Every structure is written in C-alpha cells, then in structure tokens.
C-alpha cells in the first residue's frame, strides 16, 4: 500500500517551500478550452474531429473511457478516485526522487547539515517497496485503482492487476502509466501536461536551487475574453509543419538550412507566435518577413512542395556578396541568413542583442593564453553563433596534429596542462594500453573528440604572443578555448571541405550523439577542476544527469553527398518526436539510426532543460 497522502504532502511542503496542492485545477487548461461543451461547432472542423481530439489526447481507449465517463453518474466517483490516486502516486514518486537525490548529493560532501536533512527526509517519507516481495529495487509500480505497490521484475504488479481486475498502474520511478488491457505503457498527454509535468518542473527547479539561474518563462493562461476569441474566431487544425521545398536550380544548400530553421523549436515558437508579421512590416527585402512567410507556407496545410524563391531573392538583394553565389555552401548560407535576420530584426543591437537569432544561437567563447614563463593568464572573449570543428585528415590521423611546433619546449618546462594529459594517455600496464588505444581509435572520429581537440591547450608559435607581464616580450605560451556561455541552440559545422589549392572533401564518418553534455567544454568546468585533461573521465563518471542544464539533444542534421562542387545536400529533422528526411521536395519518414549513421556536415542541438514541449 502506498502511504497516506498527508505524509507525502508534508515532504513536498518541506522541499518545495510551498504546498503542492492541486494548483492545476484553478485555471482553465488548454484541455478545458478544447473540450468545453460551449464551443461553437465552427471551432471543430467536424464532429468526428471533436471526438478524435479527445481520444488522441488520451493514452489509449481504455484510459479515454476512464477519463470521460461524464454521462454515467455512478462511474463519476471512479473517475475522480482514479485522478486523485494518480496525483498522489505522482507526488509520492517525485517526493522519493527528491529524497534520493538529497542522499546522492550529501553522500560525497558529508556535510552534517545535509545528512541531517537526509535523515529527516527518509524518516518522513515511507520507503517504497513491493508489498509482495518487500524489495525496493525491482521496478516498482503503483496500482491506480487501489494503491497496491508492487514490483514488475517479479510480476507482482501484473499478478495484482489480473487478480483484482484492475487496469492501470504507474511506474514509480518515471510516472509512466501502464495499461494492462493494452499490455503496454501509454502516453496520456492530458494527464502528463496537467499533472505530471508541472510537478516535475517544480522538482527540477527545487533540485537546481542555488545553482545557475534558469531561463525564465511565464505560462500563458488565456483570459475569459481570449478563450472566447480562440473558440469563436479560429478552428482546430490537424498537425502540420512537414512540407518539401522545391529545388530551384542547385538551391538544395538553401533548402536544408531553411528546413533546419523551420524545425528549430525556438525559431518556430518565435515566428508562429506572430512576433514578426510580414503583413505589417514596412521593411524592404526583410529577412524576418521571409522567415514569417516561410513558416506560414510550411504550416498552411498545403502538401505540394513550396518554392522559397522570395527568400532567395531577398537574400540576394539584401546581401550583395551572395549574388551569383558560387560556393553554394550550406554553412555559409546559414551564417549569412542568421546575420541578415538579425539585421532586419526590430530589436537588434550591436552588443547583447536580444533578437531571435542571438537569443537562439549566441554563445560566448573564452580564449585563455597562459605565458609559460611567468604563468600569467590573459583572457579574450569571442561571440559565437556556431562552432566549426576541424576533422582529422584521413589516413594521417593524430600524429601530425600533435607534432610539436619547432622550438617548442613546453614539455620540458613541465607545463601542467600538457603533462597531465600525457599521463592520462599513457597508463602503465599493457592491458590498459590496449584498452585506451582501442578506445582512442573508436573515438578518434566522434563529435566529442573534435570538441576535445577544439578545447585542448595549443602551443603558440615563437613570435605569436607578447606577454604584458614579462615586459611585453615574446614568450612561449599556451592557448586554450572554452565555452564561457552556452547558447540555447548549439550548431556545429564539421569542416569537411578544404579550400586549399585543390578543393577536397573529407569523407570520414563522424560519430555524434543524440544527447550531448557540454559541461566538459565550459570555462566553469575548466576553472573548477584546475585540469583540463580529464574530460573523458568526466564523461564516464558523470553521465548526463536529468538536472544538468548543459545537456543538449539533437534535432537536425545536414548532410552533403558527392563531390564538393557537384554534390547534393539533404537533411534530417525531428518533428513531434519523429525523424524525417528532407531531400528538396521529397520528404520521407526516417529512423534515429539512419540519422546517426549519416555523415553529418552540420548538427543542430537544443538545450534539454528549456521547456518548450520539444520532442
């Protein structure tokens, strides 16, 4: 049995600082508005859609029946009990999560205040365990009909559901609902949005207290008059946003970038919420207007491919150097488009710009130069919109890159940065040697390898650095890059094209992850640990934690096939949790595996901790 709601509420009052009652009941939710019986029929295209919507927002037809027993009065109490039990179950699960995270964070520091708190929490909150086998660690589930707490691993919860003829249970650790009639976990959007999600957000906020402040957002709660406006002046539309783009003569380089922008959650939110309306903008050749038109077209419901000729034309006219665009490089186009959208934004400025481009992509790089004679560190800062990463030339591999520069004697001086790195890479035993060698070979061509190289200390040439501390004389020095401020959307270019005497393309496959933790590459991380060399050990000992604000998730990938000049661009983008492949006008469903197997030219990641209902 799960404990009394009181004791859980007590814990939540203590940890959240305020009562964790059913706050979600006070204002009309989007579901109340959508399901209101007062809505005019014009709001729903068809009666069928009215019904479809309700079913679509329920996890399965069984849960739909459970939630919408309005017409049968005798079942109304069942429905309310189910809802209340679910709320209690979610509260208990979250309270336990918080308690366990207190244990973990206090475990290392052994701070007496914290361990006292841990004791208090553990005493207050009943320890969840399987009613049948007493164990704690076997995937606990709570029956949402009778509060039975049982494990999945030994099938105690399944046996209970079957025996008692109960249908729904909640996974204690991740608040997912299991339906025994479907034999499956189900995704009930309404229960998640109204109950689970607000509680999780409060938990994340609590767990991050005292840490770096989070981007703030305010929930929009429509007023009564706004509700009336919505339901009388608009109608519900099916999901949209997938539309191919016509190739207007070698314009695939543009099409892939436009799709990457169309599927960028922050740009999409900006333009779909009418923050720049082309009908009221007076600017000539305004790129913001072009973005607005693009979104209008992609979300118009029209299925035939769209030819973004006015976008290209406006780019040409507002940006002289693009005319007769010979290079046709997607990355160059991307940067030009960003700069132009920034310039055409109403609220753009020279520094600390708050335009949509800078709010989305702007980060700050820090470059530290350490004088090897006096140890003086001088820092410089560089704004960034994306990160361009060098690839190892094929076949030559690492050797050439780490070859010491002429006159380099950093090693002899015992530079701590370099020696500790060397130590890490030359472990003593043979077994370790081969382990690290294998690991290096496997990882030499991953995105995180490229980032390791990007942020590793680099020796400067003889006459490259004049140290102010050493009386402005040239000194041997080491330069190191780190990310001082991470952007909301992190875009990478993998430099596959070498514009040397003969233009060549590096075809090496670069492995890139779905989730990327940028913590090891931040300035803060480097400062904190003192050494910059243990990035790999950071990666294995501290995997991306759910409350780590530096974790990113992949949402778009741009690929280039064929030779440098004659090749073709395609891209993958994630839309409502599903991957799609965009090949100009041709759009197909795709799988994550196809995305990860592709040879990326550009990768787009968005911060996970931003809550924009992404994915």
């Amino acid at each position, binding site marked *: 049995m799960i404990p009394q709601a009181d004791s859980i509420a007590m814990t939540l009052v203590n940890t959240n600082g305020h009562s964790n009652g059913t706050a979600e009941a006070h204002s009309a939710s989007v579901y109340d508005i959508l399901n209101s019986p007062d809505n005019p029929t014009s709001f729903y295209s068809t009666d069928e859609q009215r019904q479809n919507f309700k079913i679509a927002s329920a996890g399965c037809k069984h849960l739909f029946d459970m939630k919408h027993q309005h017409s049968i009065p005798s079942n109304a109490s069942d429905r309310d009990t189910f809802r209340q039990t679910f709320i209690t179950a979610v509260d208990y699960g979250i309270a336990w999560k918080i308690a366990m995270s207190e*244990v*973990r964070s206090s475990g290392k520091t052994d701070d007496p205040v914290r361990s006292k708190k841990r004791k208090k929490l553990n005493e207050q909150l009943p320890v969840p365990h399987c009613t049948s086998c007493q164990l704690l660690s076997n995937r606990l589930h709570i029956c949402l009909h009778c509060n039975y707490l049982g494990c999945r691993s030994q099938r105690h919860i399944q046996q209970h559901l079957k025996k008692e003829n109960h249908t729904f249970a909640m996974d204690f650790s991740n608040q997912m609902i*299991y339906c025994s009639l479907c034999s499956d976990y189900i995704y009930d959007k309404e229960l998640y949005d109204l109950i689970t999600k607000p509680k999780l957000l409060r938990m994340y906020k609590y767990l991050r207290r005292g840490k770096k402040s989070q981007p703030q957002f305010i929930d929009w709660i429509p007023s009564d008059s706004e509700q009336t406006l919505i339901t009388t002046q608009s109608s519900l539309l099916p999901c949209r946003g997938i539309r191919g783009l016509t190739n207007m003569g070698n314009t695939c380089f543009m099409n892939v970038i436009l799709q990457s922008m169309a599927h960028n959650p922050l740009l999409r939110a900006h333009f779909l919420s009418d923050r720049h309306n082309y009908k009221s903008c007076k600017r000539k050749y305004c790129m913001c207007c072009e973005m607005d038109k693009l979104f209008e077209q992609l979300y118009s419901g029209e299925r035939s491919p769209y030819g973004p000729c006015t976008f290209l034309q406006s780019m040409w006219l507002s940006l002289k150097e693009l005319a007769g665009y010979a290079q046709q490089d997607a990355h160059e186009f991307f940067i030009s488009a960003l700069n132009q959208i920034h310039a055409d934004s109403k609220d753009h400025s020279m520094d600390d710009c708050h335009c949509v481009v800078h709010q989305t992509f702007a980060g700050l790089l820090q470059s530290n130069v350490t004088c090897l004679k006096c140890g003086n560190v001088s820092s410089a800062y560089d704004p960034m919109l994306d990160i361009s990463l060098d690839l190892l030339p094929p076949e030559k591999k690492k050797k050439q890159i780490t070859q010491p520069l002429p006159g380099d004697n950093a090693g002899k001086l015992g530079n701590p940065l370099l020696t500790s790195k060397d130590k890490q890479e030359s472990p003593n035993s043979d077994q370790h040697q081969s382990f690290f060698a294998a690991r290096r070979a496997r990882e030499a061509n991953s995105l995180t390898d490229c980032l390791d190289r990007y942020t590793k200390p680099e020796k400067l040439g003889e006459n490259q650095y004049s140290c102010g501390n050493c009386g402005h004389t040239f000194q041997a020095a080491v330069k190191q890059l780190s990310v001082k401020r991470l952007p909301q959307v992190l875009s990478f270019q993998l430099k596959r094209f070498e514009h040397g005497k003969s233009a060549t393309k590096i075809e090496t496959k670069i492995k890139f992850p779905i989730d990327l933790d940028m913590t090891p590459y931040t300035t803060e991380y480097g400062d904190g640990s003192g050494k910059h060399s243990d990035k790999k050990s950071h990666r*294995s000992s501290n*995997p991306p*934690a759910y409350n780590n604000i530096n974790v990113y998730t992949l949402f778009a990938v741009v690929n280039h096939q064929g030779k440098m000049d004659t090749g073709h661009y395609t891209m993958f983008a994630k839309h409502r949790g599903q991957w799609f492949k965009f090949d100009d006008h041709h759009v197909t469903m795709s799988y994550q*595996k196809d995305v990860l197997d592709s040879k990326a030219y550009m990768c787009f990641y968005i911060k996970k901790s931003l809550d924009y209902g992404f994915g």
Partner: protein
Amino acid sequence: MSASNAELKAAIDRRFVLSGERARLLEFVKQRLAETGWNDALYAHCSESFKARGIENVSMDTLLAEFSDHARASVNENIKKELLVQIKQFLDANLD
C-alpha cells in the same frame, strides 16, 4: 530460499537503494551502454521488427518478451565485469 536468506536479501536491497548506490550504478551502466553503442544497435534491431509487423502491433510486453534475451546477450562483456566488480565492492563494504 530460507527465511533468513530472504531477510538478508531484503536488507541488502534496502541498503543498496537507500545509500544511492543503485542509482549510481544505474547511471554508470546507462553511460557505458551508450558508449558502446548498445542503445543504438538495439534501437535499430527493434525498429526493423517494427517496420515488418507495423507499429500498431507492438507493445512493451511483446517487445520485452521478444528482445530481452538478445538485449542481454549483446551487452559488452567488459561492462558486465565492471558492474560485477562494483557490486562486489558494495557487498564487501556492507556485509559485516
């Protein structure tokens, strides 16, 4: 299993969870699995089966029944060894 054995098991299980060791090892395993590409490979393996039979005919229960053996067998042996070492360390430290 005798009564005292079951009691001992329950006590260790409790310590394992409440000390935070279970959560730590869980994250450790997740990370190592991701490093070896286990997730990606299993995802690909399952999605092939999805394509073949249609997404409507797939449930968590059937998925587990069909792929659990394969999933367990395809875990890198080193990960199993590393995990075993850590569990042994935990037991040594807690069985006195």
